[in-house]
């Protein structure tokens, strides 16, 4: 099958032409909730030119904020003398964001997704950050620390939409 003469939508063609190597960005922040502002700025500027619509960029920023907040509050229990590292890798397929910490493992995937109707009916609170991360990201992977892997890593992936060819 020869697709080489088929016209392609402009966005797909741009991606195919780019074939660029991944761009990598790294930031280390203190385990302090006051660092969330600069974290959001870093994520937004790192993924700004990926090709996501603005609304999706804002949602990815939110997902990373929620993930970092959970590590600081639950993993590090609000002790602010430790650090978290963010690694962002952007490609023509999308973005992978790793949040790496040395805290007590806190696996967000073990947090049960709430039934929101029940949640509101019984006026619950808390536990919504992980739910937001699930709603926003395409895949979530958690690698707890071990003897061979001394740090916890939460890996969040958001893929660019694939346009029909």
């Amino acid at each position, binding site marked *: 099958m020869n697709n080489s003469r088929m016209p392609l939508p402009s966005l797909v063609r741009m991606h195919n032409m780019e074939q660029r190597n991944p761009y990598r960005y790294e930031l280390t922040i203190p385990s302090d*909730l*006051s660092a*969330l*502002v600069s974290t*959001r700025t870093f994520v937004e500027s790192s993924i700004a030119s990926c090709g996501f619509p603005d*609304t999706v960029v*804002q*949602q990815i920023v*939110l997902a990373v*904020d*929620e993930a970092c*907040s959970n590590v*600081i*509050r639950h993993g590090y229990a609000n002790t602010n003398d430790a650090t978290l590292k963010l690694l962002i890798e952007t490609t023509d397929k999308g973005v992978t964001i790793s949040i790496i910490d040395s805290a007590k493992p806190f696996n967000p995937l073990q947090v049960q997704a709430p039934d*929101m*109707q029940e949640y*509101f009916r019984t*006026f*619950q*609170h*808390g536990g*919504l*950050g992980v*739910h*937001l991360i699930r*709603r*926003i990201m395409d895949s979530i992977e958690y690698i707890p620390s071990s003897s061979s892997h001394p740090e916890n890593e939460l890996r969040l992936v958001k893929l660019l939409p694939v346009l029909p060819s």
Partner: protein
Amino acid sequence: MAEFTITKSTLDDIAIVSLHGFLDAHTASQFEQTLGEVINQGMHKIIVNFAELEYISSAGLGVFMVFIEGVRAKNGDIKLAEMQPRVFTVFDLLGFPMLFEIYEQQQDAIAKFGSNA
């Protein structure tokens, strides 16, 4: 500009709480304290104005869940008004419009309280 600030005013028996800046896990405790003070002063009809709020995360939404049951038990409500689209999106992603009335204009929220009086 400060990261997050709150201004308060009253209109008859309605408290209007206006949020400015970024409401996240760092600043949510400030909002929770302020809203708690308003309610402890006996105000149960509350409008939160979001016109100048640039950002909200789940910690900010959680503050509304802390107080909504209590104010409704006293025939009050927390009504939300004038959200920017990026803030509304977060409420919408979690289904909050199921529980909270959200108005484009603060005036409409005031009128709704008035019609319930």
